[in-house]
């Protein structure tokens, strides 16, 4: 097991190192001078020169890369050209809200996707199976931006069932100020027993979480269905059937367990995907997460911020995969040999 962990950690380190170098190269290849973004559209030549000197943009590229890696290792992810604050501080403000949204969406996706997959496998080639397959296909293929606008217009605008936008009713900052421990509003409200903010956040979370959950739900449902159908052909399932277990019981008690391993890998993959996919959803629902920060950074050519977001997403991706790899190593000893 220690050798397995070391191997996986080494691989993760290599991926992160690759991402750092790639991010640096790509951001340096972007057209235009980052100093213009910092100094403003009407900057004088003197102001541009000062900005270039401040960010070391006149240094040779290898020196810039070395400085970039050195700064990253010391916790300095650069200064945003737009907000003029440390990128890491900006990410710390924005990322928890994204984590809250994507975490809730994934929970929703697992809670809806796995039972839907079981239902489809249980009633294979019949109406429920058809419904789950069509629903899954729709959930995967519908553009999130469109879905976000449609749900917002119908359920918030017309029916008034949910709030139009925001993370929680900010009037509560006066009546029920929230003490921050993790910067994740739901968690902080739960820890501190701030029920007004907790309930308000849950109400605000429903629509964006459903939109972000659509794609993972579709994928998980289809994957669960396929894995269960494959598992249903195994010898041990025939034995359990011969022993008189019911079909639902066989699927849930005996077929689902081995099918969960590939599902874990899938969830890790869709987690990182959902963070990026959620950017547009955050914009529509005014969710104060990484999406708004990333979109603003891109439209402003804010190179350090773009690099920071790219690196963070890559780290999340690598970390999620690492956690799943390690868990699979614990769960299934055969994984350690692969």
């Amino acid at each position, binding site marked *: 097991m220690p050798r397995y962990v070391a191997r996986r950690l080494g691989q993760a380190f290599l991926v992160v190192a690759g991402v750092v170098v790639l991010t640096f190269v790509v951001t340096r290849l972007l057209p235009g001078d980052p100093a213009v973004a910092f100094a403003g559209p009407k900057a004088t030549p003197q102001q541009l020169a000062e900005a270039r000197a401040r960010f070391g943009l006149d240094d040779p590229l290898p020196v810039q890369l070395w400085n970039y890696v050195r700064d990253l290792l010391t916790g300095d992810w650069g200064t945003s050209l737009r907000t003029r604050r440390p990128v890491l501080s900006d990410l710390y403000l924005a990322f928890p809200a994204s984590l809250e949204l994507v975490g809730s969406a994934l929970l929703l996706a697992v809670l809806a996707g796995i039972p839907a997959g079981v239902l489809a496998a249980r009633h294979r080639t019949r109406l429920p199976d058809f419904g789950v397959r069509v629903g899954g296909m729709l959930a995967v293929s519908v553009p999130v931006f469109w879905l976000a606008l449609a749900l917002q217009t119908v359920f918030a605008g017309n029916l008034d069932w949910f709030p139009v936008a925001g993370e929680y009713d900010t009037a509560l900052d006066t009546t029920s100020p929230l003490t921050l421990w993790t910067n*994740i509003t739901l968690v902080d409200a739960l820890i501190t027993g701030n029920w007004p903010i907790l309930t308000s956040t849950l109400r605000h979370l429903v629509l964006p979480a459903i939109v972000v959950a659509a794609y993972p739900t579709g994928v998980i449902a289809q994957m669960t269905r396929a894995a269960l159908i494959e598992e249903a052909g195994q010898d041990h399932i025939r034995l359990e059937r011969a022993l008189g277990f019911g079909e639902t019981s066989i699927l849930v008690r005996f077929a689902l367990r081995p099918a969960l391993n590939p599902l874990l890998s899938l969830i890790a993959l869709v987690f990182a995907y959902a963070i990026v996919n959620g950017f547009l959803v955050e914009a529509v629902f005014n969710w104060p997460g990484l999406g708004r920060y990333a979109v603003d950074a891109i439209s402003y*050519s804010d190179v350090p911020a773009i690099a920071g977001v790219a690196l963070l997403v890559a780290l999340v991706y690598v970390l999620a995969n690492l956690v799943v790899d390690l868990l699979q190593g614990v*769960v299934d000893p055969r994984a350690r040999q692969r």
Partner: protein
Amino acid sequence: MRWHKRLLVAGVAGVVAMTASACAGGQVRGAGRTPQPSTDTSTGTSTGAAEAPAAKANDATFVYAPNLDVVTDWDPASSYSNEIIAMSNIYEGLTRYDAGARKPMPRLATEWSSAAGGKEWTFKLRQGVKFHTGAPLDAEAAKKAIERTMKLNAGAAYIWGAVKTIEAVDASTLKFTLKYAAPLDLVASSGYAAYIYDTAAADKLKDGESDAGTGPYTIDTWQKGKETELTLKAFDGYWGGWKPEQYRKVAFRVTPEITTAWQLLQKGEVNFVPRLNPQLFAQAGTTEGVQTSQKPSFQNLLVLFNTATGPTKDVKVRQALQLAIDYDGLVAALKGAGTKASGLVPEGLLGHVQGMEPKQDLARAAELLNAAGYGQDLEELKLTMTYAQGDEDQKLLVTLLSSTLKKLNVTLQAKPMAWNAQWDLGKKKGQDIFVMYWYPDYPDAYSWFLNVFKSADKPQFNLSYLKNAEIDKAIDALPQLSATDALAADQAYADLQKKIIQEQAAVAAPYVQTYQRALSATVQGYTDNPAYPNVVFFYDLKPAG
């Protein structure tokens, strides 16, 4: 332990670890002093209103829905971005421009005069003004503020470039001696870099916890990255005093999506949306509970032709291109987002001329192209054009112009680019046609002529690369004329525009952007001042009823 239980334990441990690593240490969000950024008392109920107590009649909050971050720089010396909206309500300058009267009006200065041909300016300061720090405003404090801004030389500090010395003659008299004549009363009305602030507190401003202005509002809370990023509250010691019906609280609720902002406005959760697309703006005009405002800005579109190199070096080609633009079609397609321009200087500024509206004339354009050796049955003319990526209005121009030029055997290779990349290419004379917006940092038409059309060996914004000694001389004479003789300045501006547009054909100015605002019908007193883009002067507003 069974494997799924191990998974559960690992999951819980992960959440705990994440929680611990992200631990912020018990700060209080909003710190319990945030005013309610909900509806004013007379508008519709907000979705979350059930969770908050109703506000009193004189306790209404005005909620502004910007589409971008509210504040990036809290220093009044270097601030040069979206924060103009908030800063203009926290800080004040010596004067404030009135676009209707086309001149600056008193603000912290009550009167002013110029001497020595516009090279000496004396401002009398308003009495009884206090900074939000509690310190009194006097000439020495104003002198220090402007000198600090000049010394930092960031953002738009260049506007004070003419100033040689500043002298506090007495407690209420401020005297400027200039290196060259300049309309300092206009400079002092700028929305950027002209704020008067308490320099003693200037180094403590960057966290947005306090400010050092004299304006009617002061910072209440600033939560970077949050939806309600900034809230302002009334400054009780404001020199203008307070009436019960005025908005004493303001909140900025960042709403990047136009459709979301529109939904929030309809529900009464925000009071002001600074921009809508033409479709939603038309809908807003007929929606109950919503009022609209439409006003030409000081920002116009410039189509700059390369006068230095390539086929557009020939003035006949440039004139043909001017005549090929379908100005009326473009303005119609903009559906109210633009107004046909007349000359280079937008209405509301000294130097604006009537009767210079451009017209499309394809027959004349074809004649000019033929005379230059291009056109039908002659050599095909290929032109490169750069414009702003993501700007739908500029894209409309490109689409219309491309199809028109095709009929004249001219192929337009238009390339959308991010500003810094487009500008980089422009500085290298890398295109035949450069499309950009221009706006003045202070309400003076001089900005167009000095920056965009004065000769420059290394072009910065002179992206038509025009080099003309006669035009340069006329541009250099403008500041003194503006400072001493407004009528003569008006005529000089008119003459220059004819030279640059008609004789040199260095530019086409198709339209002036129009501000299209939507606001709650219950808000009274709103007028758009194009000298301060997107700024709402909240002090001038009051809720109906």
